[in-house]
C-alpha cells in the first residue's frame, strides 16, 4: 500500500525513476538557460551601469551597429528562446524514443 502511494506521488522535485527523471533534468537545464540569459544579463547591465539611466560599458560597445545591450535584448534573446525550444524538443524527442523502444510508440 505504501508502495502504491509513492507511485501516485507526482512531484517535480522528486521525479520518479525512469522517464520522468530524464524529463525533469532536461526541463531544468532549459529553464536555467532561460533565466540566466534573461534576468542575469539585465542584472549585469545594472551592476555595470555608471549613470542613473544605466549607461556603462555594455551600452557603449556596439554589435551590428546596435548598442550591445540593445542588440542582446531586442534581437538575440528572442532568437535564444527559439534555440532553447529547439534544443528542448530535440532532447525530449530523443529521450522519449529511448524510453518507448521497450514498448510501443504510444508517445506520439
Amino acid at each position, binding site marked *: 500500500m505504501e508502495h502504491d502511494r509513492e507511485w501516485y506521488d507526482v512531484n517535480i522535485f522528486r521525479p520518479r525513476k525512469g522517464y520522468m527523471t530524464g524529463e525533469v533534468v532536461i526541463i531544468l537545464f532549459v529553464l536555467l538557460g532561460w533565466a540566466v540569459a534573461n534576468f542575469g544579463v539585465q542584472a549585469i547591465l545594472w551592476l555595470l551601469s555608471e549613470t542613473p539611466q544605466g549607461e556603462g560599458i555594455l551600452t557603449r560597445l556596439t554589435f551590428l551597429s546596435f*548598442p550591445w545591450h540593445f542588440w542582446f535584448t531586442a534581437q538575440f534573446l528572442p532568437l535564444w528562446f527559439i534555440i532553447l525550444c529547439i534544443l528542448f524538443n530535440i532532447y525530449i524527442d530523443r529521450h522519449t524514443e529511448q524510453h518507448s523502444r521497450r514498448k510501443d510508440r504510444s508517445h506520439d
Partner: protein
Amino acid sequence: MTDAGPNLIPLIIVTLALASFIVAGLRARARSASDYGIGGRYIGRIGGGAAIASNWMSAASLLGMGGLLYLHGYYALAYVIGWTGGYVLLLVLMAGQIRRFGKYTAPDFVGDRYASPMAGLISAGISITISIIYCTAQFKGIGMLFGWLFGTGYRNGVILGAVVVVGYVIISGVLGVARNQQLQYTLLIVSFILPLMVLAYKLGYFWVLPQFGYGVAIQDLKREFGINFAAPFASGSLFQWISLCFTLMVGTAGLPHVLSRFYVVPNIRDARWSLVWGLFFIALIYWSAPAYAVFARLLEARAGMTLPPAAAEKMADLIVIRTAVMGGLPPWMIGILAAGAVSAAFFTVAGLLITGASSFSHDIYYRFINPRASETTKMALSKAAVVALAVVVLVIAMDPPGLIAEITAVAFALAGNTIFPAFLLGIWWGRANRHGVIAGMLTGVVITFSTPLFGRFLPVVADIFPLTSSAFFGAPAVIAVMVAVSLLTPPPPEEVRRFLAEQVHGHMD
C-alpha cells in the same frame, strides 16, 4: 492626423481585406466541411506554427508594442522578451502534459484535475474577465484605427468599430466561416514588414532585413539629436523591468486561448514542434516593432516636431501608422499596414468573444444554473453573451484606462496569478487539491487588482504588485498559498492522482 478627414484608400483596402477573409473562409468550408476543429484543420508543423502566431497576434503586438517602445525605448523591450520568453515556459512545463491530460479549456482542466465544479466555475469567471480586459485593449486599437480611417474622433471610432466587429463575428458565425489562419498570418507579416522595408530604404538604412538594420538609426538619433533611445533604466528600474517581463511570461503560459492551441495537431511531438515555428513567426513581428519606434523618433526629430509627453502618449498607440504617414509611404501601402492591424484586432476580438460567450453558456449556465438546458437554449444564450460581452467591453473602452499594451498586460497579470499556478501545480504536484486551488485563485485575483483596490491606503502595495507587473511576487505567493492550503486539507481523490501519475507522467514506465 485624426482631423484630416477620411483616409479613403486605406479604408477601401481594409474593407477588401475583411471581405476577402469571409470569401476565403467560405471557399475553404465548401472544400472540406468537416475538417475544422477548434482552430482549423491539420496543416503540418509550419502551418500549425502560423496558426499559433496568428492566434497570438493582436492589436497589442501590431500597434501597442510599437507605441510603448516609442514612448519608453529600451524599457519597453520587456514586452518583446516577456511575450516571447513565455513560450519557453509553456513548452517545457505544460504543452505535452496538458495534451496528455486531455482537457483544453482552463475551466475544464481545473474542474477535472481538482475534481471540483466550484474551482472550474471560478476559473471560468477568471477566463471571462481575462477576455474582457484583453478585448478592451483590442477595442482601443480598433477605435483609434477606425477614427483615423473615417477621419473622426476616438469615441465615434470605437462605437463604429464595435458595431462592425460584432457584425463580423455574427456574419462569420451565421455563415460558419472558419478562420483561415495561414492566410491571416501571411497578411499580418507582409503588412507589417513590407512598409518597414520601404521606410528603411527611404531613410537610407539597410532595408533588406530592416529588423536587423536599424542599429545605425539608434546611433544617429543619439549623435544628431541627443535622444538616447537605448538607455536601459531611463523609464524604469531593474526591478520594474524584470517584474514586468516575468509577469508577461507567466501570463503567456497561463492565457486560456493560448493553452488551447495544443489540440489542433494530431500528436504531442507535432504540437511541440509547431510551437517552435509559432515562436519564430511571432519573433519576426517582434524583431520589427522596435524599428518602427526608432524610425518614428528619427522622423519626428528630423522634422523638428518632437511631441510633448502628454501628446506623445495620446498618439503612441497609432505610432506604427503615423510613422508610415510621416515617412511619406504611398496611401495603398499605409492601407495594407492598417488592414493588418485591423485584422489582428478583429480576429482576436472574434476569438475572445466566442470563447468568453461559450464559457458563459457551457461552464456557468449549463453546469450550474440549468443542467437540463437544450442545445438550442445554450446556442441562443451564447449569441446573447457575445453581444453582452461586447457592450461591457465597449463601455470600458470608451474611456480606455491606459495604452493598448498596458491594458493587455493586466490580462496577462491576471492569467499569471491565477491560471498559471493552477496549471503548474495541477500538472507537477499530485498533492495539490481543490481547497488549495480555490484559495490560490482567489488570492491571485485579489493580488492582481490590489493596486487599484488598496493602493491609495497602502502605497507599498503599488510597489510590490504594480498593476501591469503583479505576477513577479504574485505568482510565487499564489503557489505558496496553494501548497500551504493543500497540505492542511485532505489529498485529492485517488483516481485523479492515479490518472496524473499513469496518464500524464507515467505513460512509458
